């Protein structure tokens, strides 16, 4: 079973200071601590629970500035098998349409055989809740939103619960499918220190593939080339 989890690094809007907004009214990301979007963390936890239960392979994808690699590391420490960072100056300022196109392309390129795509219900910076559903549309697969729990996955059939206005709906449907996950219905696990040691001291485990609008770059799996890659990305990237 292949699960793709879409995550986002977001400014920590729970702890906002006076310099949180720039003059043009956009978020001053530099002034806010960057955190793992809470709903996405719950989505990752749900995916990892499926990994524990069914041995699913979990691939995590994020789009963002180079710094967003932090949440990919976090994902690896928690148990993800594979992570991808999509980063390019041209991605800056993407709206939900652009973002969903980019993520859809990445899913097609990097996780061709997925069974389930999971994302948090929404991100705490934009609160749109649109990216997940748009990706499902673009991939032409069914979607279930506000998911709270997965009961079982058997023979390409997934049984799950979702929140509705009246209460909880229990739904059965076929995979492949996209789910957006409601926060607060599971306790995200902590990073595992053994995996931390493994991935922080051995960068070779991170196969970072960077999509640029005109080229794809593959880096040698060692500390030096990752440093080089980060340097290039940071120098090219406009944070915003």
């Amino acid at each position, binding site marked *: 079973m292949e699960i793709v989890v879409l995550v986002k690094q977001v400014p920590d809007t729970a702890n906002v200071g006076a310099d949180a907004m720039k003059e043009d009214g956009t978020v001053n990301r530099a002034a806010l601590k960057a955190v793992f979007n809470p709903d996405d963390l719950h989505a990752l936890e749900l995916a990892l629970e499926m990994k524990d239960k069914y041995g699913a392979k979990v691939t995590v994808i994020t789009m963002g500035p180079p710094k967003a690699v932090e949440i990919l590391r976090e994902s690896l420490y928690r148990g993800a098998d594979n992570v991808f960072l999509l980063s390019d100056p041209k991605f800056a300022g993407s709206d939900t349409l652009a973002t969903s196109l980019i993520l859809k392309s990445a899913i097609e390129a990097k996780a061709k055989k997925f069974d389930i795509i999971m994302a948090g219900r929404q991100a705490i910076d934009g609160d749109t809740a649109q990216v997940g559903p748009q990706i499902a549309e673009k991939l032409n697969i069914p979607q279930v939103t506000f998911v709270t729990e997965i009961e079982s996955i058997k023979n390409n059939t997934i049984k799950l619960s979702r929140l509705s206005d009246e209460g909880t709906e229990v739904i059965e449907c076929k995979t492949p499918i996209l789910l957006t996950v409601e926060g607060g219905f599971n*306790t995200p*696990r*902590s990073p595992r220190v053994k995996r931390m*040691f493994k991935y922080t001291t051995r960068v070779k485990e991170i196969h970072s593939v960077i999509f640029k609008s005109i080229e794809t770059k593959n880096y040698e799996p060692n500390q030096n080339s990752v440093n080089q890659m980060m340097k290039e990305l940071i120098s090219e990237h406009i944070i915003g």
Partner: protein
Amino acid sequence: MANFFDDNKDLQFHLEHTDLDDVITKLENNFTENKTYDYAPRNLKEARRSYIEALRVAGEITGTTVAANAEAVDEEGCHFDHGKVEYASGTKQNMKLLLGADLGGITIPRQYGGLNFPTTVSTMIIEMVSRADASLMNLIGLQDIGETINEFAEESMKAKYLPMFTKGEVTGAMILTEPDAGSDLQAVQTKAILDEKTGEWKLYGVKRFITNGCADISLVLARSELGSKDGRGLSMFLIEKDDTVQIRRIENKHGIHGSPTCEIQFNGTKALLIGKRKLGLIRYVISLMNGARLAVSAQGIGIAEAAYREALKYAKERVQFGSPIINFPAVYDMLTWMKVQIEGGRALIYETCKYVDLKKVYTALNEHESDNKEYRERAKKYSSIAALLTPLSKAYNTEMSNRVTYDAVQIHAGTGFMKEFPVERLSRDARITNIYEGTTQLQVIAAIGGILNGTYEELLKEDYDNIKFPTELHNLRETLTSIRSMLNKCINVIAEVNDKDFMSYYSRNIVDMATDLLIGYRLLQFGIHNEHKREIAKLFIEKAFANTLKLSEPVMKRNKTAMENRDIILEV
């Protein structure tokens, strides 16, 4: 919400200044383990970095979830229904998070899935857990029985049970105490009966006051030599919880509500012998206890740290007579002394940990290469230092924890007596620390020998007499020399009087003086690094001097009033 490692400068200071290079290199077999285990460090730098990372993870979990759950855990307590014990819901969440983060087998070797960390680092984690929720420390700290299994059990038992601990699948308990065998464990009556035909041991008897007695895997002290009366007839057994282990009740306690304290009846429980028969108390329990004593020392510091921070915060916020109360001498006197005692206690415990680590690595080396003279001598030396410092640390830090939480309530005044403020809980939780795993009075008995036989003086000579202190610290060093001379005079008086009761009666005075002196030296050594540590050392040593005058006086005068006239005083 804080990270309990990132927000604790003193803990970071100790990690940086505890000289563990030799310990780490030996523990890591000269960094050869990474060929087999992908999470093993390749050099000292990576090892140290891995400690910091693990401490950060533990600091995050304890500083956020565990700390936030503490009040509810205290309020809810443990549940007991028809022989079944259930933790408070917050405790369950805490355990799941900590054990799920690989923090279940911190000091266990990697071949069984552990992190292979030094005791110094695991003790820091224990301290942070205790700061967040003292009752959780008992459950997490008891994972330590894995260490005893590792040290003394057969390979097949290690291979079976240790991975359960390192995977976080099981909790542990050490089942020693009985209704008539508390401090005096030689009186243990629980029977272990060997079925000669099957070679199987079975346990019968009742145990009381057992922390986490509902654990999945426990170590039990029982009488294997039927008819024997003393400690030499006792052996150590491993049991798995099953229907023959009947939990009769759990205690309704003053503090540490999140930790279930059980009364247990064994009705023919299948048991596996650990190590050799008859060595249960005299060898294995001592080792198990020493580990637990270190953990309880850390528990004392953790609780004190939490109480001090609450008191400091309150003293800055609370305004009386037009000023925050922190500005009043009576209040900052308490606060500064709390802080100094905590940093003093930390100086002692991490120094103790270093020697415990040295003892462990050299004992292991000595077992592999028994003809290596250096290893043998070092193992012996570090064992006797660890045996001296462990009870000193337990006595000091748990008494200190009680003093600090007492003053923390005092600073809060009436508010601190109310359940709404954490210091109320902290003061209750601290109260058990100087009782269990051996009361302070028993720690004094365990430590006095090493002070009277010269181990202590030898340690001071080797560790502190050759340090070049900067000129501005010379006065303080002189004060320490005076304390040392008063202590040595008292030790001479004890020898001259040559009376067991006199020695026993004044052991506490001697132990307290020796503890102050050792902490004083260590703090002075830290004073070389920065101004804060210098002032901490100064206040500690000034007070230690006054305390030594008070403690040495009756010994020097050879006062025996209570000894000779206790019947008259007590009217018995």
